[in-house]
């Protein structure tokens, strides 16, 4: 995304904004007053070493964890998110690392699981599924996202890893999502499939969604995100515009090394990555 477009998004109000989020687990402070925000049409990369608090922060956003202190703002207003259902109702969709797909069901059924379109039938739980409507919507959605699948009636268990990830991401868009949280979307994918998923993330941005990507892979992060948000030991260690930073600077923020010590700063983190 070009710099001009980005400065435009800077002027926009954040869609999801966290202020001073504190989360403790017993004596351990996982998050120590974190501010975070993401705007519509923006992809934010959330990076940090293991134990930096990435997962905790995402779980606060998706409503799984209630913060001990801090504000959850959505669309400019403070919201009381008491559970995953509240976050979903606001339009915050989460794509978990395990994808949470039902391998025995086809693509259409997976896209609509839990919010099936029904028509007629006996009412309530015995309402008849409106398969044609769901299939049509699925085909349209996948076409908008240029996700290529053998068939929308293909069983999800028979799809490749990249296709499964694409289905999981597409599913988050069925329920009118405004913010999509992606947990390690490219982990365990091959080069080609990673490219597929990154292209899909770019299309989410084109659709005006706010996207948060958690990733360990800085190459992927640099390719797809607009801003990089670095967490270190439960605190914000820096926010970088992708156009105006370097790998070394981000890595230094992740590891806490002083940036500008040349080879040291770059060498140390890569060994930390390798140790992971």
């Amino acid at each position, binding site marked *: 995304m070009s710099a001009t477009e980005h400065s435009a998004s800077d002027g926009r109000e954040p869609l999801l904004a966290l202020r001073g989020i504190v989360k403790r687990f017993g004596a351990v402070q996982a998050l120590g007053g974190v501010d975070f925000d993401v705007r519509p049409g923006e992809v934010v990369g959330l990076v940090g070493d293991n134990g930096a608090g990435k997962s905790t922060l995402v779980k606060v956003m998706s409503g799984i964890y209630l913060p001990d202190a801090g504000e959850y703002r959505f669309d400019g207003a403070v919201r009381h998110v008491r559970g*995953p*259902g509240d976050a*979903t109702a606001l339009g915050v969709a989460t794509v*978990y690392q395990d994808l*949470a*797909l*039902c*391998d*025995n*069901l086809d693509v259409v*059924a997976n896209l609509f*699981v*839990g*919010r*099936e379109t*029904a028509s007629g*039938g006996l009412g309530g*739980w*015995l*309402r*008849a*599924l409106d*398969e*044609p*409507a769901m*299939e*049509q919507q699925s*085909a349209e959605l*996948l*076409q908008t996202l*240029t996700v*290529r*699948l*053998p*068939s*929308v*009636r293909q069983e999800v*268990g*028979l*799809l*490749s*890893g*990249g*296709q*499964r990830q694409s289905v999981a991401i597409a599913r988050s868009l069925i329920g009118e999502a405004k913010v999509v949280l992606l947990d390690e979307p490219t982990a365990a994918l*091959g080069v*080609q*499939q990673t490219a*597929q998923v990154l292209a899909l993330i770019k299309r989410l941005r084109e659709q005006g969604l706010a996207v948060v990507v958690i990733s360990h892979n800085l190459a992927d992060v640099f390719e797809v995100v607009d801003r990089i948000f670095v967490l270190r030991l439960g605190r914000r260690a820096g926010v970088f515009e992708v156009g105006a930073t370097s790998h070394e600077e981000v890595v230094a923020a992740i590891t806490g090394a002083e940036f500008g010590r040349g080879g040291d700063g770059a060498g140390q983190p890569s060994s930390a990555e390798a140790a992971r």
Partner: protein
Amino acid sequence: MSTAAATPEPSATPAPAPAPEQRPDGRFAVLHRVAQGELGSLRVLIGLVVIWAIFAIANERFLTATNLVNLSLQIAATGMISIGVVLVLLLGEIDLSVAIVSGLCAAIMAVLVEQHGWAAAPGIAAAIAAGAAIGVFQGGVVVRFGIPSFVVTLAGLIGWQGALLLVLGSTGTVNITNPAIVELAGKFFTGATAWIIAAAVVAAFALSSLDARRRRLRAGLVAATPVVVAVRVAAVAILSFGVVAILDEDRGLPLALVILIAFVVVFDYIVRRTRFGRHVLAVGGNAEAARRAGIRVNRVRVIVFMLASVLAACGGILGASRLLAVNQSSGGSDLLLLAIAGPVIAGTSLFGGRGTVWSALLGGLVIGSISNGMDLLALPSSTKFMVTGAVLLAAVVVDAAARQRRQSAGRV
């Protein structure tokens, strides 16, 4: 074909987005599924033809109208219980108590009607209500304490056996004389009535096929061509009229068979076409994913256990009607084995999420045919048990092998 479609690598050259007409049509998908060995129904139909051919050669009486009427009466009770087993298996659970619950509920009905002078309808309703209560109790224990259903229903298998003895009292047997209950397995439709029933089945199938096609076309989707619809309707017509023609040569179309097929059709609709059925399949496929998608997983589980026990009660009532008595061995012997083996033989997976309600009927036919054929040949019980066990083992091996294939074909 199967390898190419099973592991579709994302093409490096950006192919155009799949337009609807480029997606494989229905026939292609069916071929695909047969090639993957997942279309259990077709596999089991071929198996059934082989079994019938063997017994027909071994004993000329096997394929007579009289014996086929007997066979349909023999599978009615087991098939009914198997419908409930299918639902539980789809959920990825098991219910080992279904056979004994069928005996217990039949005993409750028999005692109320024959000893306490209740009419047939309230007696049957009481038996079904008892089944529902048992199912809710067992399902409730499974979800409340997180105990494997295998253990809870094993306890039920023993406990309800005791309840059966208690209900039957000191005599240990209750004869059924109530005409309405006797009619359930004793009534036959002959002549015009039977043909009208067959014609109604064909007409209903044709109308629903045409309606499904119309709705798909209206949504701008690929639908079965008129030729395909016509072939399917013709197949159903040949089957329905053929069954009636054969059975009508003897006593006629048994009411029990009509009841069983009606239950299969209704529960097949529930599983494949309603939100509840979709939720059952989702829980059976990935319970955690279903929970995150907002499905109330525990409620689905309790309802399915309730349905399994209710269907067991219905099967028990049909069985009591056929044998004209309920006694201490009702719901015992190999009924449990047969009720579970049937659907598994016909392709319903023990691992959850895969299977059809029709497998209850098809599997019941396979198991029933083997049992009936061996009876005609007057084989000893030792041989019968070993053959039935071998068939079940073979079916489970096929199921497990299909699962392994899926796992190696999926997730690249």
